[in-house]
């Protein structure tokens, strides 16, 4: 996949505070890239840098093929940003808001109207298009803001906490929208605190606290930190001899009892699990189910980010 965003030692200082410290990133076209870090880590500052809203103190970046600092207007035409606050004109209708922004992005009349209709329908707001935004719920405003950020079909969409404060239904709409964007070959740069969401949506994740701590796929991060674990649920419950047999199987690194299951850590479960199943059955155990054990991304995050602190 082509690289659509590349930074080189991107740095932003505000007086004595270094908000973004020498960030080197490569984001590929068509991927959902998660940018995770604690409050005050500099995530929003990174977004503003990459959208050419503020200038770096040092370092550089190439965004959608344009050089930051030299081709800022072109960058802004190629990217969309969902800011922390929806920032909508509340006295005006949903339709008027989108038409205004479509004009700012240089879309002509028919295209502006077609795009506004498309995104209002996509976000389920078409029926209320002529109502003032002030009458909308928080979730509807957030969906409006997402529609605005994507109106001009940006190559890269920067989303800052897109589902914060949304009800499950609205959050689902937003997640489906992100998946649809990826399907169109657009890149999504997702800043979020919602680790479950990042786990579900992101192809790769960067853990960030003023500087990049780690970048990898969620699965690789889990495997590296926690190994690959499989849960064997036995009926009625595992016996001590079952655990002894399991530990003796070649390829098993570790095994332990946990809430009526045997948790087995093995680097190559595809090879080890059939052996384990056969061993347990031969030993007279009754297997209720076998399932891959994934540590929560939250555990991974805490281990990496808090460990780094």
């Amino acid at each position, binding site marked *: 996949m082509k690289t659509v965003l590349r930074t080189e030692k991107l740095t932003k200082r505000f007086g004595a505070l270094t908000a973004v410290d020498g960030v080197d990133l490569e984001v590929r076209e*068509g991927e959902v890239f998660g940018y995770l870090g604690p409050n005050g880590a500099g995530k929003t500052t990174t977004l503003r840098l990459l959208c050419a809203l*503020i200038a770096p103190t040092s370092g550089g970046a190439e965004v959608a093929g344009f050089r930051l600092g030299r081709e800022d207007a072109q960058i802004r035409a190629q990217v*969309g940003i969902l800011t922390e606050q929806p920032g909508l*004109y509340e006295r005006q209708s949903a339709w008027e808001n989108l038409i205004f922004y479509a004009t*700012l992005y*240089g879309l002509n009349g028919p295209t502006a109207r077609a795009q506004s209709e498309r995104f209002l329908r996509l976000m389920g707001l078409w029926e209320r298009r002529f109502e003032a935004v002030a009458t909308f719920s928080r979730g509807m405003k957030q969906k409006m803001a997402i529609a*605005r950020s994507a109106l001009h*079909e940006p190559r890269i969409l920067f989303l800052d906490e897109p589902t914060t404060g949304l009800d499950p239904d609205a959050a689902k709409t937003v997640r489906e929208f992100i998946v649809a964007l990826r399907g169109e070959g657009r890149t999504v740069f997702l800043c979020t605190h919602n680790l479950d969401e990042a786990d579900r949506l992101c192809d790769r994740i960067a853990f960030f606290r003023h500087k990049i701590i780690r970048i990898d796929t969620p699965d690789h991060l889990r495997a590296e930190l926690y190994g690959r674990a499989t849960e064997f649920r036995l009926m009625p419950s595992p016996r001590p001899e079952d655990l002894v047999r399991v530990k003796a199987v070649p390829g098993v690194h570790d095994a332990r009892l946990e809430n009526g299951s045997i948790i087995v850590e093995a680097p190559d479960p595809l090879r080890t699990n059939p052996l384990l199943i056969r061993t347990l059955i031969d030993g007279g155990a009754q297997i209720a189910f076998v399932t891959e054990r994934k540590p929560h991304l939250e555990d991974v995050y805490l281990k990496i980010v808090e460990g780094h602190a």
Partner: protein
Amino acid sequence: MTAIAIARRPDRPALVRAVCVREWREALANKLLVGMTLLPPFVILLAGITAVAAAAVNPPSERDVQALYAAAPAVQGLDPKEAVQGFIATYFLILFMLIPTVVPLTMAIYSVIGEKQMRTLEPLLAAPVGVGELLFAKSIASTVPSVIVTWTAYAIYLASVASLGSRAAVNAVTAPRWILAIVVMVPLLTLLSVNLGILISTRVNDVRVAQQIGGLVVVPVVGIGIAQVTGRVVINNEGFLQFSLFLIAADLVVFWLAKLAFQRENILVRWR
């Protein structure tokens, strides 16, 4: 699959039109702003028409006439009633020059501080639009209604004076330098006030504080007006041209200062 963005830099007329339409819709929906915009011209107009009508109905006393001749040597030699009406008509024309300094200031201040308070500036600045273009569009959005309001008020005043006042009053109101002042200086003063309002709004977050600071722009206008009507200063054609050139220069300098203050990074990082 490579995604394609369909955005481009908007052309300037489309940008100005979009910003104007949006700001006017926003302004019309804000009753307080509409009231603050229309009240000063309404009060000045009402007071002016009433004063001219009163002067037409009530002949001035000898004492009033002497006081007038002393205060305004320019009207000496005219028939007392005509002189009083001419003086009053001209005096209120000076108040008309306050409209372009007061009315657009409020709108310009709301145009920036309103966006600050609604937190709409960040998505606005994320668009592929230059801040100078954006500022220019905002200036036009505040300038046009104010100029139209002033011209409309002048037209109503002119019609009222023509129907109620003496020949001297009509002559005073339609004097070439006053027509030029209305046609040329009103837009220039309006632009100055608008850009000053924008400049002040970049530094403060409270509409009232911004209005109080911006209100200082009326002081030189009132001073020159009073000096002119009392005959202390006679703005002849050359003086008029010089004052117009000064206003053009002041407009450019204040716009440049506003543009300096209205930078993306300043707005996003330092404005609170």
